[in-house]
């Protein structure tokens, strides 16, 4: 079975500072993708960043980067220079190549001005 665990239901960060959202997962697959999705209040969910499991290099998209630890099955998201627009629900997701995508329970991020 594939599972995704986000142990932080809520996080807050001061504007311009850095925050890290945690995610652990479990899968027996050797080939899979990991994602972070962002759901702003009353708006549609969008992809933030994607990591292929076979790539050792951590993915980066502007202020967003991940720390992918394959052996530990950990996939954390770091947001640098946080902005008010970063406030949202963040979902970690696992997509093994032979099964459906699995989502974590989500982390609600608040950005304080």
């Amino acid at each position, binding site marked *: 079975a594939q599972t*995704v665990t*986000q142990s932080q*239901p809520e996080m807050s960060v001061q504007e311009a500072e850095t925050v890290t959202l945690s995610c652990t997962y479990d899968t027996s697959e050797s080939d899979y*993708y990991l*994602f972070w*999705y962002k759901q702003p209040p*009353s*708006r*549609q*969910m*969008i*992809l933030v960043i*994607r990591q292929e499991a076979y790539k050792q290099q951590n993915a980066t998209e502007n202020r967003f980067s991940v720390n992918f630890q394959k052996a530990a099955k950990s996939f954390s998201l770091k947001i640098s220079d946080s902005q008010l627009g970063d406030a949202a629900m963040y*979902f970690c997701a696992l*997509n093994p190549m032979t099964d*459906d*995508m699995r*989502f*974590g*329970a*989500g982390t609600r991020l608040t950005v304080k001005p």
Partner: protein
Amino acid sequence: DVKVTQSSRYLVKRTGEKVFLECVQDMDHENMFWYRQDPGLGLRLIYFSYDVKMKEKGDIPEGYSVSREKKERFSLILESASTNQTSMYLCASWTGGEYTGELFFGEGSRLTVL
């Protein structure tokens, strides 16, 4: 820009009513999905479709059915709504071509069953 449109943002229905949630995508994607989003549970897959008239059960299909008569449209049907189906419903689509893993989501339909 890619677009997934859900017909209703907010619905209030009574127990026992039949409910239709409509989803349309303009990206010519083969795959479409219906998820249910509940606090503390994340997104759970109800049904998905990989082609017209094709459907597959997800993790929580009980109490739901789907219809996909045209490639761009995927409908979720609650035959007899119950209070435990009060939730946020998200439609998503994904191309069946080169794998990117990116799901494109609609804005969601928040259903309240009284």
